[in-house]
């Protein structure tokens, strides 16, 4: 009953898929499997969350079991080395929401919908913090402040924002809207709170520089962005559903049919499930082990190159083997390790 009332008050027509954020409960971590990582600028950490840092190695991040009631995982950032940001410095993380997933909000038109952001946050550093929302071109930005009142305690934040009636907003498979959290940035990125403005901003001048406190911690989970003026309860999804939503943007391929091309190279074909946002870029996570059923073959080092691809299939070479036979068939040696070809169609 409470959920129904809250959903009705939120103005959303959706009982499910109210939450446009993917991995809002921080349960999916394909790249690091719960291990700590040191974000470099442009890198992804937990699925769908991307970091931009002007100085490397100042932050570590990790999936965490420190959570508010009702959640099992959060995203933890820790200051590895404190920094006093210069004017052009930035330390932020964000999620880009695909245009298809916010098309109904009609941003950039006179019918733009009001939406509400909610999340649980905890930090060792109290004070005023900023979130930013922006279009894909980052030439329309909205800043909103929130306050962490008590150190080391999860607090629930809700922020309601009138949709932008100006600017160009993606409504297909390009970027729709991005939402980001400032952890400390320079004055170049100071903007005005509570209004849509032209330009790229991450924070207001009154926001704390969390990055300036040695060993500071910042946890976040339960992130939700939904249509309407009221935050409804967090929309829990089944793990498999959340994983498939993430895999539209990033997946680790560990299946396919490989044919020997030379003694060192195979040509391999793999299906992508689910269909990805775009034809993906390929890389490798560890060396791959293939088998012909009787003998295993292991790369001496990673080597993969895309030969052809679409949003649901890739054909690629795997190199640095030895002893392969031309035109012989090989399969992935599942269970030997968790390595694979990474397919990324992130923004």
């Amino acid at each position, binding site marked *: 009953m409470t959920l129904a009332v809250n959903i009705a008050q939120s103005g959303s027509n959706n009982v499910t898929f109210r939450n446009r954020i993917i991995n809002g409960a921080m349960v999916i971590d394909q790249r690091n499997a719960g291990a700590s990582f040191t974000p470099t600028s442009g890198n992804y950490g937990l699925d769908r969350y991307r970091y931009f840092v002007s100085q490397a190695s100042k932050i570590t991040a990790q999936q965490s079991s420190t959570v508010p009631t009702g959640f099992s995982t959060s995203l933890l950032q820790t200051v590895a080395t404190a920094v006093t940001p210069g004017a052009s410095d930035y330390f932020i993380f964000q999620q880009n929401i695909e245009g298809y997933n916010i098309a109904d909000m009609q941003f950039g038109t006179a019918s733009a919908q009001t939406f509400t952001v909610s999340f649980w946050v905890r930090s060792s550093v109290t004070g005023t913090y900023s979130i930013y929302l922006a279009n894909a071109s980052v030439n329309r930005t909205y800043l909103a402040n929130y306050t962490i009142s008590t150190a080391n305690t999860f607090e629930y934040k809700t922020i309601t924002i009138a949709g932008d009636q100006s600017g160009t907003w993606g409504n297909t*498979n390009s970027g729709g809207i991005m939402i980001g959290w400032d952890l400390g940035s320079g004055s170049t990125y100071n903007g005005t709170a509570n209004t849509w403005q032209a330009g790229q901003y991450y924070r207001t001048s009154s926001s704390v520089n969390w990055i300036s406190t040695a060993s500071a911690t910042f946890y976040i989970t339960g992130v939700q962005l939904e249509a309407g003026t009221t935050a409804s309860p967090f929309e829990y999804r089944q793990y498999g559903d959340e994983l498939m939503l993430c895999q539209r943007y990033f997946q680790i391929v560990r299946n396919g049919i490989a044919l020997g091309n030379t003694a060192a190279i195979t040509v391999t074909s793999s299906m992508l499930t689910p269909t990805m946002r*775009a034809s993906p870029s390929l890389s490798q996570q560890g060396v791959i082990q293939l088998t012909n059923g009787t003998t295993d073959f292991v790369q001496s080092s*990673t*080597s993969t*190159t895309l030969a052809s*691809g679409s949003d649901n299939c890739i054909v690629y*070479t795997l190199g640095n083997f030895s002893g392969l036979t031309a035109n012989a068939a090989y399969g992935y040696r599942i269970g030997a390790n968790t390595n694979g070809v990474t397919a990324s169609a992130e*923004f």
Partner: protein
Amino acid sequence: MYKLFKFNDKVVSVTRLADSTSIPFDPANTDYQAYLRWLEAGNTPEPAEENQ
């Protein structure tokens, strides 16, 4: 820096050498968009090897 990749005598992808990421020629792929910006800045990729 980037290097073109040729397969069956056709250039089919481009590799970003910094992290060995293989990038499709898909306008919706943001790595490809970054490659196009790199080209527009006046840069030239390394040619593909002929025997691939």
